[in-house]
C-alpha cells in the first residue's frame, strides 16, 4: 500500500536518522571540504576565486501546512536529480539552502530576502502557491534575480505579469485543462457542470476547460465555486450538481479537498451515472490512496502520469521509489526537471552565476526528454511546452493508478487570455 505521507520518508536509508536540513548541511560541508582541498591542490594554477565556493541554490517551499506534501515531493525530486550529478554542475559544487514559506506571502518574502541577501544564493527555485508567487514577483523582478517556479500555475505569470527573471518548470493552470475540454466534448458528453474551489487556480482551470468546451459546441449548465481552503460539508454542492442533471462533471480540487469531493461524489451515487472529468491534481498519486475505489473511473488531464510509458519515466519512478519508499507524483517530477533546468543553466555559463543575462539566455533553448515526455521551455510564455495526457483511474495489481488513455499532443500556453 502506498503511504499517503511521504513527509519524512524520502531520505536515503543510510542517512535516514538525519533531518533534511542536516543532510543539506552535510552536503554543503562535504562540498566545501572537497573544493578547499581542490583549491589547495591546484593553487599554482590560476583559478578564479568563485570556483572555490559552491553554487548555492535557494529553495522556497511549504514544508508545513496543507501543501507540505507538495513541498516535500518537489524537494525530493530536486535533490534526487542533483544527487545523480554528485551535486556538481557547471564545474562547481552545488549546495541547496531550503526555507519553509508556510504558504504565507509575507513569510515567503522574508525568506526570499534571507536567501538572496544573507545566504547569497545564486538563484532560487520552488514556490507551490500562486499567491506566494505573485507576492514575490516584484522582489525578483526589481532585484534581477532568477526564480525557477516549480509548481504555482497562475496564468498571469506567463502572460501580463511576465518577468524576464521568472521562468516556470511546471505548468500554467490553462495548460492541462484547455486540451481536456476539447477532448471531453468529443468523447464524454456535451453538457457539463463545473466545480472548483473559489481561488485563483480554481478559476483559471475552470475558465480554460470552459473555453475549449464551449468553442467546440458544448453547453455549461452551471459553475460552482466552493469555499477555499476548506470546503466544509460537500453534500450541498453534490446536490446542486445532481439537480442540474449534466452529462458530465468537471472539477478541480487538490489535497484533502480532492479526497472529500471525490469520496462524496461516489457516496451520493453520482459516479455511477455521471462521468467525472477533472484536472489531474484531483486524482494525482498523492491523494489516490485516500480516495480509494471512489476514484475508480475518474478521467483527468495532466502533463504526466505515473505509468507513462517512456524510458526516462521508468528510470525516474524506480529511482524515486528506491530513494523515498513511496511512489512518485507529478510534483516530484517537477522538482526533478527543475534540477535538470538548473544544471543546464549552470553548465551553459560554466558555473559563472554572476552572468545573469547569459543565464537568462540559456533558458531560451532548454529541451530534453523528461519523465513527462519531450520537454521544452517556451521563450514566449517562459513556461514549458509539453504533452498533455488523458488518464483514467484504474486498478492495477491491487493498487489504483492513473493509466494514460490518450496523448493529446504538445501544448504551449498562449501567452494571453484569448483562449481562456
Amino acid at each position, binding site marked *: 500500500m502506498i503511504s499517503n505521507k511521504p513527509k519524512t520518508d524520502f531520505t536515503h536509508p543510510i542517512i535516514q536518522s538525519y*533531518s533534511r*536540513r542536516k543532510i543539506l548541511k552535510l552536503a554543503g560541508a562535504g562540498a566545501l571540504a572537497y573544493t578547499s582541498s581542490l583549491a589547495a591542490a591546484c593553487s599554482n594554477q590560476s583559478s578564479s576565486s568563485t570556483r572555490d565556493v559552491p553554487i548555492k541554490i535557494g529553495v522556497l517551499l511549504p*514544508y*508545513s501546512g496543507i501543501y507540505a506534501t507538495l513541498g516535500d515531493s518537489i524537494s525530493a525530486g530536486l535533490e534526487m536529480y542533483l544527487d545523480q550529478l554528485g551535486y556538481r554542475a557547471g564545474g562547481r559544487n552545488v549546495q541547496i539552502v531550503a*526555507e*519553509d514559506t508556510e504558504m*504565507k*506571502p*509575507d*513569510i515567503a*518574502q*522574508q*525568506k526570499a*530576502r*534571507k536567501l538572496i*541577501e*544573507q545566504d547569497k544564493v545564486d538563484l532560487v527555485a520552488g514556490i507551490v502557491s*500562486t*499567491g506566494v508567487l*505573485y*507576492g514575490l*514577483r*516584484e*522582489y525578483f523582478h*526589481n532585484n534581477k534575480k532568477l526564480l525557477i517556479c516549480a509548481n504555482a500555475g*497562475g496564468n*498571469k505569470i506567463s502572460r*501580463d*505579469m511576465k518577468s524576464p527573471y521568472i521562468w516556470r518548470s511546471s505548468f500554467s493552470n490553462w495548460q492541462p485543462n484547455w486540451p481536456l475540454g476539447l477532448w471531453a466534448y468529443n468523447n464524454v458528453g456535451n453538457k457539463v457542470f463545473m466545480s472548483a474551489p*473559489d*481561488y*485563483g487556480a480554481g*478559476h483559471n482551470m475552470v475558465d480554460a476547460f470552459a473555453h475549449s468546451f464551449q468553442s467546440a459546441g458544448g453547453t455549461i449548465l452551471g459553475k460552482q465555486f466552493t469555499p*477555499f481552503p476548506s470546503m466544509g460539508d460537500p453534500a450541498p454542492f453534490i446536490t446542486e450538481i445532481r439537480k442540474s442533471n449534466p452529462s458530465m462533471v468537471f472539477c478541480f480540487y487538490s489535497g484533502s479537498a480532492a479526497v472529500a469531493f471525490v469520496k462524496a461524489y461516489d457516496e451520493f451515487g453520482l459516479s455511477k451515472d455521471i462521468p467525472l472529468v477533472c484536472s489531474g491534481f484531483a486524482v494525482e498519486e498523492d491523494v489516490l490512496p485516500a480516495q480509494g475505489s471512489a476514484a475508480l473511473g475518474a478521467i483527468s488531464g495532466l502533463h504526466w502520469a505515473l505509468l507513462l510509458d517512456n524510458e526516462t519515466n521508468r528510470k525516474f519512478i524506480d529511482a524515486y521509489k528506491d530513494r523515498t519508499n513511496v511512489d512518485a507524483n507529478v510534483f516530484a517530477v517537477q522538482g526533478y526537471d527543475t534540477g535538470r533546468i538548473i544544471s543546464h543553466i549552470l553548465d551553459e555559463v560554466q558555473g559563472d552565476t554572476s552572468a545573469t543575462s547569459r543565464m537568462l539566455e540559456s533558458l531560451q533553448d532548454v529541451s530534453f526528454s523528461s519523465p513527462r515526455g519531450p520537454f521544452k521551455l517556451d521563450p514566449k510564455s517562459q513556461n514549458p511546452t509539453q504533452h498533455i495526457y488523458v488518464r483514467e483511474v484504474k486498478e492495477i495489481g491491487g493498487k489504483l493508478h492513473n493509466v494514460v488513455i490518450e496523448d493529446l499532443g504538445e501544448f504551449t500556453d498562449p501567452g494571453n487570455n484569448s483562449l481562456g
Partner: protein
Amino acid sequence: MVERLDTMYQRLLSRKILVAVIIVVLAVAAPHIANTYTISLLIEVLIFSIFAMSLNLLVGYTGLPSFGHAAFFGLGAYIIAYISGVNDLTLSFTNNILLTLPIVIIGTGIIALIVGSLALRTDGIYFLMITLAFAQMLFSVAMRWSAVTGGSDGLIGIPRPEIDLGVWKYSFESRTAFYYFVVTTFVAIYFGLHNIIHSPFGLALKGIKSNQMRMQALGYKTLHYKIGVFVLAGVIAGIAGMLLAQFYWHASPENLYWTMSGQALIMVILGGVGTLIGPVIGATLMRLLPNITSTYTNNWQSYMGIMLIVFVLCAPNGIMGILLKKLKNNQ
C-alpha cells in the same frame, strides 16, 4: 528630600536622553553599517511594531480584547493597493503620499467608526467575537470579490511612496529611502501615542480599563471614548498595513486573516500589555525569532508556543513587566 528627588529625576532624564541619542544615531546610521537584509528585517520589525502598538491601545490601555485587528491592517494594505497599485484591477490614481496617506487614514477611520459603533455596544467575549467576525468577513470579501481584490492572489504592483509638491518630487523607491520613511513614521506615531496616553483622553481610557462603571458615574460618556480609541487604533493599524504593502509591493488576503490578528495579540502579550515599548519588543521577537530559528528547525512554532505559555503563566505583564520590576527593585 525635594532636592534628592530632583537630582534623581535629573539623572534619570539624562540617562533617558543618552539612550535616546544612541538609538537615534543607530537608526540613522543603520543603512550605512548593516547589510541590506538586516535593513529589510528592521523595516518589517518597525511596521509590525506600529501594528502591535495600535492593538495595544485597545487591549492594553482600554481593556478591549479585539481579535480582529488585522481587518484594519489589511484594509490599509488594500486601500493603498487600490489607489496606487499598477495593474489591471486597480485605479492607479496617485502615489503621492500627501494624498494617499490621508485617503488611507480617512478610509480606515470611517470603517473603524462604523464597526466600532456597533461592536463597542458589547463587552468582553462578545466584543472579541464581533471583531473576529468582522475581520473574517473582510477576509472572505477579499478572497471572493476577485474583480476588485484579486482574490487569493492579492493585488500586486504597489509602488513605494513618493512626495510630490509639484515643483519638488522625492521618491522613497530605494530600500534605504524607504527605511527612513518607515523610521520617521514609526517615531511620529510613537511620540504621538506617548502624548495621547498621557493626555486627559489617555487617562480616561485607563480609567475605563480599571472601572468602567465608575467612569460612567463620574459623568464620562465611556462609549464615545471607546469609539474614539477604536478609530485611532484602526487608523494606525491601517498605516502599518499600508507600509507593509508598499514594502512588499503586494497586498494579500493573509494580511486580513485571523492569524494576523493573533500574531499581533501575541506580540502585545509577549512584550507587555499596557506599556508603550512592550509591543515593540514583542514585535521584534516575533519577527526575528522565527527568522533565526527556522534555519535550524521546522518546529519553531512549537517553541514559540511553549514560550508564550511560560510568559502568560509566569510573567503576565510580558518582558516589559519583568524589566520594570527589575528597575524598581534596583531603586
